[in-house]
């Protein structure tokens, strides 16, 4: 049995035109704007053949543009396979939140979907990039959607992109989320390499800036001293440093478990690699899911991941970051930087900052923490 979760680009289209959107570059190549029902049926059926537990993360574009009928089809198909084969399905959806209404929220609540809403923070910050095609900010619509979600008691969290605009505003962002009752959120650095000139895009931040930002957030979190506030990446780093198993593939060494399927059936190792030449794993209209998951391109990808981690041997952080994110390794090569630099520097800074705090907080065998804190 294969254990794989699937990020599904149910739609390639979006009602927003966020200026930092990493997916925007693919829009000119869109062949199938919304996944067709036969392909969806085939994907769900094949996934159910391969695993006892299947996790779908419905993504886009903006997945809600696929419409309620298609989401109902998803649930109906899953019910069928659950009854037939005893397969358990889990569903998450990542939305920009602007299309949420009572009906959507009730659907998600009823069918136990987890909902992630893209929300960058306070109004001015959010509206700096997250705009409609005419340039109007989406903040009010997103907050309305969030309110409906919480009223429906649907499990929800926010995902904030940390761009150049966010730098120096860690406390403002942190306080905003708490004030709005958003206790479950994550912070995603905007780090896009411009394919034309090989530099980071103007909205992007440097890894060191992200490390500094996350460190400030960590201090605020500790100061707040409320364990109900959960910032995914920080929680994962804490778990890693405390000797546990973090869920994030960015720190647990399991690259390629979030297989991504585009609406035309093209399969990629993860969401970040969509459209990246040389990383395509196959297409569901030409091969079966099993063939793709056990095929040559995926094996090549795994070998490439291992090769990227060759510089990790001897690194004091390797035991806790497990080689880090392969996409960041790929970006480093695009930027022409040597192994062990770029994202690794940021990782070292943030892990060291948190390890230093832990060293003074926990008791027990802290020799591992000391190694990280004192390493150069």
């Amino acid at each position, binding site marked *: 049995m294969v254990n794989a979760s699937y990020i599904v680009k149910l739609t390639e289209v979006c009602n927003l035109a966020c200026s930092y959107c990493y997916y925007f570059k693919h829009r000119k190549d869109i062949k199938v704007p919304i996944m067709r029902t036969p392909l969806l049926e085939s994907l769900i059926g094949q996934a159910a053949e391969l695993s006892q537990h299947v996790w779908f993360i419905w993504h886009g574009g903006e997945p809600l543009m696929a419409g309620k009928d298609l989401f109902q089809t998803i649930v109906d198909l899953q019910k069928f396979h659950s009854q037939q084969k005893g397969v358990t399905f889990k569903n998450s959806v990542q939305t920009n939140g602007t299309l949420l209404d009572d009906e959507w929220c009730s659907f998600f609540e009823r069918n136990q979907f987890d909902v992630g809403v893209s929300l960058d923070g306070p109004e001015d910050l959010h509206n700096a990039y997250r705009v409609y095609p005419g340039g109007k900010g989406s903040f009010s619509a997103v907050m309305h959607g969030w309110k409906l979600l919480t009223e429906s008691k649907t499990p*929800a969290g926010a995902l904030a992109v940390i761009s150049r605009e966010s730098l120096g505003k860690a406390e403002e962002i942190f306080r905003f989320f708490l004030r709005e009752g958003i206790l479950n959120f994550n912070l995603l650095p905007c780090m896009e390499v411009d394919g034309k000139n090989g530099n980071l895009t103007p909205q992007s931040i440097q890894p060191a800036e992200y490390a500094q930002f996350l460190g400030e957030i960590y201090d605020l979190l500790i100061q*707040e001293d*409320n364990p109900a506030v959960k910032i995914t990446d920080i*929680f994962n780093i804490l778990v890693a440093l405390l000797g546990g198993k973090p869920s994030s593939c960015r720190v647990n060494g*399991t690259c390629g478990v979030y297989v991504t399927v585009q609406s035309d059936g093209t399969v990629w190792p993860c969401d970040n690699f969509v459209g990246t030449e040389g990383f395509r794993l196959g297409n569901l209209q030409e091969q079966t899911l099993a063939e793709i998951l056990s095929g040559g391109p995926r094996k090549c990808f795994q070998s490439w991941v291992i090769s990227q981690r060759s510089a990790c041997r001897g690194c004091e952080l390797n035991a806790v970051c497990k080689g880090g994110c392969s996409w960041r390794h790929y970006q480093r090569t695009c930027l022409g930087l040597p192994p062990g630099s770029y994202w690794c520097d940021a990782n070292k800074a943030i892990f060291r900052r948190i390890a230093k705090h832990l060293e003074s907080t926990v008791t*027990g065998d802290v020799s591992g*923490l000391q190694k990280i804190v004192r390493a150069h």
Partner: protein
Amino acid sequence: MISIRRKSASSKVVANAAAFVEAQRMQDSGLLAAWNQGWPNEWGQDWGQNSRRIPSGPTEGFPWLTRATSSS
């Protein structure tokens, strides 16, 4: 491997993460199978799932263990 024998109460955030790690270890030994409800370990922790499966609350002990096993 970093080993935490006793959690400090000086930070509830750290104590909560330490309790989670201890729960993972118990789960590995089979004690938390009911809590996990059959989901692969690496899937159970993402924020989306977490909001439902791992309630926040008291940081000492394993508050979610009692809650989840009694409802499953």
